[in-house]
């Protein structure tokens, strides 16, 4: 019997890398939850994520976010990826904390996810929540996080931790 809330895989980076990939994800659960905390190359970069290595224009997202002085919302359609917090950016020294909940990831519907990001910088920063859509009815078997929109522009720094959980309904 599978466990309701199970850790599928986790990684803590021992060196900087441009991508973090969870592959061969079994269809054993109902939802997926990714928790990541980490830092990134200096320059105002932030992660993006894609499913099943699909780099086509099959993604869209909508989010709300706040800074120390204002709140805003944004939306993008037919993108090649989903930003993990388009309103903000990761620091190279203060860890960002983000989550992604992916619903019915192994089902035959299009895939919706909810994501959050918390990026306080002791006087500045961002907090936000968003919804993402991947217009595909394929089961998700691979989740790839990238330091920017590719694997080389920016890197997740040493110590960044990402853990993927599976949540199983009755």
């Amino acid at each position, binding site marked *: *019997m*599978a*466990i*309701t*809330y199970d850790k599928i895989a986790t990684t803590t980076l021992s060196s900087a890398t441009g991508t973090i990939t969870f592959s061969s994800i079994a269809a054993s659960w*109902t*939802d997926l939850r990714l928790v990541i905390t980490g830092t990134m190359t200096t320059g105002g970069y932030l992660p993006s994520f894609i499913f099943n290595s699909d780099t086509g224009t099959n993604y*869209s*997202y*909508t*989010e*709300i976010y706040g800074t120390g002085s204002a*709140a*805003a*919302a*944004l*939306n993008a*359609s*037919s993108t090649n990826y989903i930003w993990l917090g388009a309103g903000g950016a990761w620091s190279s020294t203060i860890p960002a904390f983000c989550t992604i*909940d992916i*619903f*019915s990831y192994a*089902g*035959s*519907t*299009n*895939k*919706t*996810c*909810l994501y*959050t990001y918390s990026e306080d910088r002791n006087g500045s920063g961002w907090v936000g*929540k*968003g*919804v*993402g*859509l991947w*217009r595909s009815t394929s089961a998700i078997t691979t989740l790839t996080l990238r330091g920017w929109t590719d694997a080389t522009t920016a890197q997740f720094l040493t110590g960044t931790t990402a853990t993927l959980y599976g*949540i*199983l*309904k*009755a």
Partner: protein
Amino acid sequence: MTITNKVSLKSVNGGNTPIADVVDAPTIGSATAGIELATVTFTAATTGGAATSYGAISTPGSITGTSATSPISVTGLTGGTAYTFKTYGINTGGTWSNVLSAASNSVTPTVATAFESIASASPAGTTTTTFSSIVGTYSSLQLRINGIIPTGLYNSILIQFNGDTASNYSFHQLTGNNETVSGSGTASATYMVATGYPYGSAVDSYPTGAIVDIHDYASTTKFKTIRSFAGWDHNVTASSEVCLHSGNWRNTAAVTSIRVWSSVNFGTGTSIALYGIK
């Protein structure tokens, strides 16, 4: 419970004379694993003395459970450990069968976790799902919804507790779409909002995602506080939205049932699951 005494009547009198109320062993059925427990089915013997109850004993551990009828629940097992079970009858004097049944299949109970699945539904073609008989053994409840509403229709996904349809709910919300962020609130409502209000939920076949947390739901002294985080993106600017809700049910009763519904039928692929958090 661990065995401390299983002396049979037959052994007491030396086994020389049949004793009418010695219970013959039941026939083992099958064992099924649960969370740190197992349920064991059996068929009562048609010979021997009358049994007032039946028991199952584990290997390893000699942990027992009893029941007047099949199945027997054996609790207190260790998650992740494989067990088999044998069953026995118990007579009016509390004495066991002098032999045990054959062993059951092997099962491995799961480890108890802080986050457990309670129930789920796939309500395609209907407007309503109700989770009832919710036990009060958790600290919080969480609903996770992948909601689809057929093309051309729209509506919020709403919830009520304990069948209460009176104006005992209130909520406020923070919503955002492509350009604007707005906040609003509703007092004395007849429901709590799980996903967007007054905006529509999913159209086309793009699911709405929602996570609804109900805190301290089993309290009998406090009103109930609810929060939800929901969103739907339709790959078009106009009808995509993300929203946060905070709500209150002004009732001190423990939440024992939750009705989740929409005014239009849910579409194929909709999944609504209820979890308990310890």
